[in-house]
């Protein structure tokens, strides 16, 4: 009787692993205790030994397959005297195809935005797994009439308290509910991504609709434009899904300000006027080239290392914000950067940017210095892994070699995606950046 080799649980909490390597092939004899495969989990790589004696009859899971659930048959060992014919009709048992535990998929707040192709089931059909994602029985009890009226009125039944038998929602409850408002804010049963798009009337994300708090007539309702909706959606996702951390460093600007003055004087004839921000963009680009591991995007199953520093520059608009990109800023001089930023900003304000001009990028710079903001933290723009928040350059007291002096200081805060950029790496990037800013001539190198 053939024997199934099952994916072992290498730790009490292991649910699945990668069958990284087969150390035997079909037809090989194995003895009890022989290492036949290597299993990789998130924590470590472990060896799998054969428990029984026999011949490898069939390999069921090929090398490199990820997401193999524990107890999945990975191979069949033929006992002495059996041959391949014994495999006919043999049911290896377990779950034939490697499948990721649906609970695991459901526990994560949402499938990562660039869906990993690794284990097909979790990403393939979000609909079938959705019922499992929704925790125990969130059926709303409402009379047929109440259901229909709620649908017509745009009332979210999940947010209505029922006054009927056994808490059933009845007509009167729906009539009393304000469209799009919550009578009694219950937490949305499933994770927010299930309601990714327009808030299902009554809740905004998982929070009660603010209309609930303010009497009518004390506010003016302004409809959301496309940009506002996009900002809301993207930055909520970014904040919820990207593990942000923040590194702050102060840069002395005096040298840079002198260089800038000189450059602008020399370039006046050609209409060149370089801003501090242009220096910052160039410095950031050069720093990213020096620390290329910071010029990445986290792709769920890989890191994408960008060839160039495509720097997004945050531009404030009426009723919004957009980040047009200076592509390959590492290859462009200050004048070119300056001209491009001006052009992009102007077209941004006129809403004339093409998607390619503001989607993507590898890094962003956001500068609120012109408002006197000393320090702030910015939200990373997916698919980037970092963003630099630039504060105002201001005269500050500084201590140099034990003596109190003054200098023009600027505080810069780098937000990093910890999935892609670890603390030491982010710190090194800021160090390089600071050196470039404080000694601008090095930007010529």
């Amino acid at each position: 009787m053939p024997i199934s080799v099952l994916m072992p649980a290498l730790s009490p909490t292991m649910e699945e692993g990668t069958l990284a390597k087969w150390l035997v092939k079909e037809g090989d004899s194995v003895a009890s205790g022989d290492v036949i495969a290597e299993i990789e989990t998130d924590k470590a790589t472990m060896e799998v030994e054969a428990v029984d004696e026999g011949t490898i009859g069939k390999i069921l899971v090929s090398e490199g397959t990820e997401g193999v659930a524990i107890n999945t048959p990975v191979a069949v060992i033929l006992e002495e005297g059996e041959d391949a014919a014994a495999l006919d009709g043999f049911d290896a048992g377990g779950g034939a195809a490697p499948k990721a535990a649906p609970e695991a998929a459901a526990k994560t707040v949402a499938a990562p935005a660039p869906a990993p192709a690794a284990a097909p089931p979790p990403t393939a059909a979000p609909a079938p797994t959705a019922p499992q994602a929704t925790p125990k029985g969130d059926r709303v009890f409402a009379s047929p009439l109440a259901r229909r009226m709620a649908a017509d009125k745009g009332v979210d039944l999940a947010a209505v308290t029922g006054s009927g038998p056994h808490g059933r929602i009845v007509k009167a409850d729906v009539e009393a509910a304000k469209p799009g408002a919550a009578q009694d804010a219950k937490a949305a049963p499933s994770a927010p991504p299930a309601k990714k798009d327009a808030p299902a009337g009554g809740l905004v994300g998982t929070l009660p609709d603010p209309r609930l708090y303010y009497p009518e007539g004390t506010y003016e309702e302004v409809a959301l434009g496309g940009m506002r909706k996009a900002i809301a959606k993207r930055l909520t996702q970014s904040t919820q899904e990207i593990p942000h951390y923040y590194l702050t460093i102060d840069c002395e600007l005096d040298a840079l300000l002198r260089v800038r003055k000189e450059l602008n004087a020399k370039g006046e004839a050609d209409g060149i006027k370089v801003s501090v921000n242009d220096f910052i963009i160039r410095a950031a680009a050069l720093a990213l080239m020096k620390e290329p591991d910071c010029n990445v995007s986290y792709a769920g199953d890989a890191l994408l290392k960008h060839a160039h520093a495509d720097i997004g520059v945050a531009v404030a608009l009426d009723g919004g914000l957009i980040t047009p990109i200076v592509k390959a800023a590492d290859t462009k001089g200050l004048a070119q950067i300056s001209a491009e930023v001006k052009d992009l900003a102007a077209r941004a304000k006129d809403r004339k940017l093409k998607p390619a001009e503001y989607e993507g990028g590898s890094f962003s710079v956001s500068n609120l210095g012109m408002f006197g903001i000393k320090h702030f933290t910015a939200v990373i723009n997916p698919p980037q892994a970092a963003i630099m928040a630039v504060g105002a350059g201001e005269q500050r007291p500084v201590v140099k070699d034990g003596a109190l002096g003054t200098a023009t200081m600027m505080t810069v805060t780098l937000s990093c995606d910890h999935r892609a950029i670890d603390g030491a790496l982010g710190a090194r990037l800021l160090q390089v950046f600071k050196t470039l800013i404080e000694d601008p001539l090095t930007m010529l190198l």
Partner: protein
Amino acid sequence: MATSYDLAVVGSGPGGYVAAIRASQLGMKTAVIERSELGGICLNWGCIPTKALLRTSEIYAILHDLDAYGLSAKDIAFDIGKVVQRSRAVAGQLSKGVTFLMKKNKIDVVKGTAKLAGQGKLTVEQDGKTQDIAAKHIVLATGARARALPGIEPDGDTIWTYREAMVPKAMPKRLLVIGSGAIGIEFASFYATMGTDVTVVEVLDRILPVEDADVSAFALKAFKKQGMTVLTSAKVTQVAVTKGTAQVTIEAGGTSRTETFDKVILAVGITGNVENIGLEEAGVTVDRGHVQVDGYGRTGVEGVYAIGDLTGPPWLAHKASHEGIICVEKIAGLKTVHPLNTSNIPGCTYCRPQVASVGMTEAAAKDAGHKVRTGTFPFQGNGKAIALGEPEGFIKTVFDAKTGELLGAHMIGPEVTELIQGYAVARQLETTEAEVIETVFPHPTLSEAMHESVLDAYGRVIHT
């Protein structure tokens, strides 16, 4: 027998005895005080005995149509004494049943006439003797009686109320029924079927005025076909009784005429039994013959409640029962209790053909601002009705065009008083048309007409 109770109910009709049973179920020490027979008017002098009489007339009507069913019989006759006796026996049996229920639920029954005597106190008088009863809560369920018209008082002989009409010693040759509500029409139907020459006078412009206009119109045609004289927008201005007959002056269509009738039944409405129970002294508000209460039967006077006919329309036993339960559950502090939804109370009239309805008439729905869809299905299209040989009538349903809410259902025809519960349940569950359409009604039954009526409202009727 103790004299101190958690709850005392005055009156043991369908409101009172049901309230008492519920109170007992909820653990309250309960007493019921009754001055006449247990079961009140409904069981003894109302709903039940009239249905027994109407059963006799129903069979009698079929007996006059035997040939259609391939049957024959000779000497078809009836003995009014026995007819009445059967009705009294049925009433008696049910009244005994209430006695049994009181015992089973350990409810003390006190015979006598009760009167409020201060907070938490009642005095009960019987045969010249008085006893005091203390009760934390007192529920008044003294019911109602027939109204009289100015100048036209029942005399127990020629001018009848329902009471006398229920126990005729002989069948009148010519009968006048004043009032075309359920009570008047049921008696008119009974007597007409049994051979009496019946005239119905109604002051409004249609009979059965609470029903949908289409039902009233159909009923009028049906009664006229049966040989009844029906006068609408007509008034009785005078009744003079001489030598055991009544000379009645009827004003109709601008003219006045006088006709002679053997008996006159006054069926012009009900008025609550509010007298001599100490309401004024207790400070209970009475308005136009009825005790004023809130949705839980509370009168506003601490510890005093009122239910049923005593509190006003609809004067229906099932309304009284539900009010009794709601009142008692509220006293007991049940969290789930809420006032009765009066629009879900069905109304039934057991004339021939039967009439039943629940919810809003088409006119009322429109007046309330609903845009409506209506469906009407005639029993002519129903196989069972034809097989029964009773294909007269229809089922009409009224829906809110926007939400699909079943606003009302109105029926006239065979057994509709039994069918109406389906729509009452549907309304209680807040159905839309979709759920009724998907319900599988058994075939062949009269109830399929309920399904078809709903289909008709949505342009999908199959069998017409």
